[in-house]
């Protein structure tokens, strides 16, 4: 009964891919840098719902409005009362608005990465000329830029208002610069943390809750511990406790190195401690980047 199988096709000219007549592409190839730029700009636009459905625009635009309106009101009040300085220093503004910023990161970080995981589009990206590092850099840069827009816009409103109210130009410009620097560091730190958490879960909802839990709960826990440490007379420990949550990290950096007002109970961090804060922030951003690279080395393949 054994059917004689034909021997394996001998190698050589008999095996070949048939040309079934598709036309080849011989136009310009835009390459890796172009792909990376596109990924960056699409993610950045997507973070504000541009190019997506109306429903997706609601939340980012709402949060953007919520963060800018108090700045506009402050400026209006300052102009009306002819104040000599803004009611809130530039570096302080992001700390007051930390709940809004955390919500924005929590809603947009999963938007940037979780859907690629869930719909298994990651292998499609990596079949293009881009590398793992390109994907991570593009997403990281896009989310950080989106956050910088969110945190920088109210500062611009405050600065313009301060200049219109004819406040001291040098003083305001210095404060504005320090505010922008702290906003930039905040954007990098929050984007990194948000992306690392979101890139682990393909479930968007779960990612949102996890990011919020890390940002808000750690802030709540750290401020509680700081208040208790201060009231128990161990004020020296307060700045060191502040190292354990992203919001207090930025707050401590602003008051330690960037001349902002102190947001901690008791004495604020000294210059040396401010330097430690800066080191920790830079280290955390680098660690987030490293973790993302590691995560995307073999994801979905």
């Amino acid at each position, binding site marked *: 009964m054994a059917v004689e199988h034909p021997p394996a096709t001998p190698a050589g000219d008999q095996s070949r891919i048939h040309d079934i007549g598709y036309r080849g592409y011989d136009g310009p190839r835009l390459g890796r840098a172009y792909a990376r730029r596109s990924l960056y700009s699409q993610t950045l636009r997507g973070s504000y719902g541009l190019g997506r459905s109306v429903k997706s625009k609601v939340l980012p635009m709402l949060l953007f409005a919520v963060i800018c309106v108090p700045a506009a009101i402050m400026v209006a009040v300052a102009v009306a009362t002819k104040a000599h300085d803004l009611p809130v220093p530039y570096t302080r503004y992001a700390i007051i608005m930390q709940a809004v910023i955390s919500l924005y990161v*929590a809603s947009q970080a999963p938007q940037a990465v979780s859907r690629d995981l869930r719909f298994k589009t990651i292998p499609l990206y990596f079949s293009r000329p881009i590398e793992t590092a390109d994907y991570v850099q593009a997403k990281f840069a896009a989310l950080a830029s989106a956050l910088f827009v969110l945190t920088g816009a109210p500062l611009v409103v405050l600065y313009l208002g301060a200049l219109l109210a004819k406040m001291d130009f040098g003083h305001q410009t210095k404060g504005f610069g320090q505010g922008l620097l702290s906003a930039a560091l905040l954007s990098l730190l929050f984007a990194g943390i948000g992306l690392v958490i979101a890139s682990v879960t393909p479930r968007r909802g779960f990612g949102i809750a996890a990011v919020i839990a890390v940002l808000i*709960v750690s802030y709540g826990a750290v401020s509680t511990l700081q208040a208790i440490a201060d009231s128990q007379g161990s004020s020296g420990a307060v700045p060191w406790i502040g190292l354990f949550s992203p919001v207090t990290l930025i707050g401590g950096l602003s008051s330690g190195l960037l001349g902002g007002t102190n947001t901690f109970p008791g004495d604020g961090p000294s210059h040396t401690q401010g330097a430690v804060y800066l080191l920790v922030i830079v280290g955390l951003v680098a660690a987030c980047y490293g973790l993302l690279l590691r995560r995307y080395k073999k994801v979905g393949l």
Partner: protein
Amino acid sequence: MYDPTVARLTYRALLGRRRALILGALPLLLIVISVVVRGLAGADDQTASDLLGGLALATMVPIIGVIAGTGAIGPEIDDGSVVYLLSKPIKRPTIILTKLIVAIAVTMVFSALPTMIAGLILNGNGQQIAVAYTVAALVASIAYAALFLLLGTVSRHAVVFGLVYALVWEALFGSLVPGARTLSVQQWSLAVAHKVTGGDLVTSDVSLTTGTVLLVAVTVLATWYAGQKLRSLTLAGEE
């Protein structure tokens, strides 16, 4: 009105794989902080009340409620597998009620129980503080689970809107605008807790009657409307 199979599937969706670990991380953090605070500050009623009120009831219960409430139905609607459930001869309100019971149970286990433990660690239930906040967490679990389950059937962005309500409305506006506190699950549950223990440290801005009526009304209405919503569910594609 309770379907064991649906309940089992919902439990698995909420706690399966590594999710139980992540849900457990928050309560664990609360207990660790309580231990640290007890070590730093010793037993102090005001500290215990601040910590349980600020961290446990205002932050942890809503977040666990959002995860459990929306997680009970949201992912199924999101990936479309809910049609297999809906095509079975089970009444839609039964599905909602079963999922609600599971969500309430999970929220209670992961929020009220750790609140109790944290309270006992902090001051050994002095002035009934631990019991008061546990009661508040239990009551709030029911309302939050019902509310966020409804959100899960209404919107694809249920988690975000749930968190916006819990963190921006209750925490931010609640501390700035006194009127916002009348419409806050947290204050309603505190009213109940205040009545149960009768202490001075646990107080609420709403009266017991208002609190109880609103709690029951919100829970019942949200559950009923979620059932209605599920009866006429349309599956939308991913935007």
